[in-house]
């Protein structure tokens, strides 16, 4: 378990190097990593390209190539992600019926449990575990938010000060 999260943390560090919000994720099936990714929102200019969404895409592609029914396949997927999935990702993972989600640190800005508990809207829910290597995950986020988002337009407040 810890090893899977360590791998997710490595991916999150990669994101940080690439000036992306440092979140990493691995999908595990029968003890094997079957998808791994990190945030790539800035590179794709698509704010929904979170680590989890990228992993979902990988799994669907894999299933299609190998003629596997992804509905069945997702039911055995365990998700390891460094930061609690946001409302969007939590909903996507619920729709896909993944078995379990384990996260590092909580997400108090967008969390699908912390900010809005989306499990209330669904009949099915995955098992959710938190706080695995949370400090490491949080340290990466803090490092990122010390800097500025290179793609965001300059804030109006800053402009006026000039």
């Amino acid at each position: 378990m810890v090893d899977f999260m360590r791998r997710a943390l490595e991916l999150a560090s990669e994101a940080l190097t690439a000036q992306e919000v440092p979140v990493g994720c691995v999908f595990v099936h029968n003890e094997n990593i079957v998808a791994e990714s990190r945030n790539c929102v800035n590179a794709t200019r698509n704010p929904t390209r979170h680590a989890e969404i990228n992993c979902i895409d990988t799994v669907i592609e894999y299933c299609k190539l190998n003629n596997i029914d992804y509905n069945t396949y997702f039911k055995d997927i365990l998700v390891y992600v460094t930061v609690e999935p946001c409302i969007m990702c939590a909903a996507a993972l619920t729709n896909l019926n993944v078995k379990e989600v384990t996260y590092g640190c909580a997400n108090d800005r967008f969390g699908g449990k912390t900010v809005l508990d989306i499990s209330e809207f669904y009949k099915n829910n995955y098992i959710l575990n938190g706080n695995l290597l949370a400090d490491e995950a949080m340290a990466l986020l803090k490092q990122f938010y010390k800097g500025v988002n290179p793609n965001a337009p300059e804030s109006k407040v800053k402009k006026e000060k000039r």
Partner: protein
Amino acid sequence: MSEATEPPGKKAKMADTIIDNVIENIMHSKKNLTAVLDDDFYKEIPLIKVYIGHAKDPKEISRMFQVLNEKVPLKEFHHLKRARKREILLCPTVFLDTVMPQSIQEFLEQNVDELKDCFEYFKEIEVPHKPPLVRKQYLECSKHWSINFHPNKYLEKLISDDFFKNEDLIDHRLFMGMAFEVAKWYQNDKKFTLEDIVKGNINAAVVVDPKNRSVVAVVCDNRYEHPIQHAAMLAIDNVAKTQKGGAWSTVVDSGTGTLAGFDKGMLMHLKNKFREVNYGAKMFVSKRDDAIQSEDSPYLCTGYYIYLLREPCVMCAMGLVHARTKRVFFCYDNLSNGALKSKTKLQCVEALNHHFEVFTGFL
């Protein structure tokens, strides 16, 4: 004639007519749209019990105010005026000691001794516990007590069901009609029926930059092929494509540059059918490519409107928050999964960093 003996194509043609009728109704109705707002604006304001005292001498009232405001401040009840004619609001009944039960007279003697003989009699009444948010609530509240209320003009307009000017309404209805046209156009490729559009869960989207009345991207659901490729998620990606980004290669024959949000064939069809609007995004200038970013350069869906056949699910709605969409318009409620009206109202979650406005009521 039974269904089995109907000639093939007849059913499809009937469905075609149904969609065309829906488009016709959407585009020609004069009915204004409805904003989907926080439930708090529609709720009755709960009441709380308070003590009031009838002043013996009306000339004393202003002095009584001063003393009361200093010694028994109303704190979180600032929406309540201290007096109504000769009746003075003293305090909520819960201010009184419950361990050693006391009367309001005893309470005054202990806390505001100088006013202990100023009242003819006391009464327990119910007054609004919370400040009214909109005029309608204010009018209800005023029946109980005098209320301080400063209406938010914009909010009053939003809640009035008379929000859009006629010329804007025509545009919103046109773009929603276009969303149905998009779904209709794609139904052969995407393997759903026209009935799915009206009754199923198939969605389609039209993204518009209202500043220049220009359609930036159009998409249709691909959820049967790919479970997270719902219309809104695809729309966000198609917008990314107009900004030199994008992740999904879903468009077979996509345009380029500012027209990258369209399938070429689709674009031709729309240009023919809806000639009165513009097509394409504004030119994207990246901060990476250009040290001085143009004021006008688009950023995600900032400032954009999205028109959807049906209320988006939780995933899509949050995607639209991440994309900083300005307004979301939808036609049909999504009772089982809708996140803007039916199951929850994501636009009202204060903790989030972006809040779009939501409108419905096309039919």
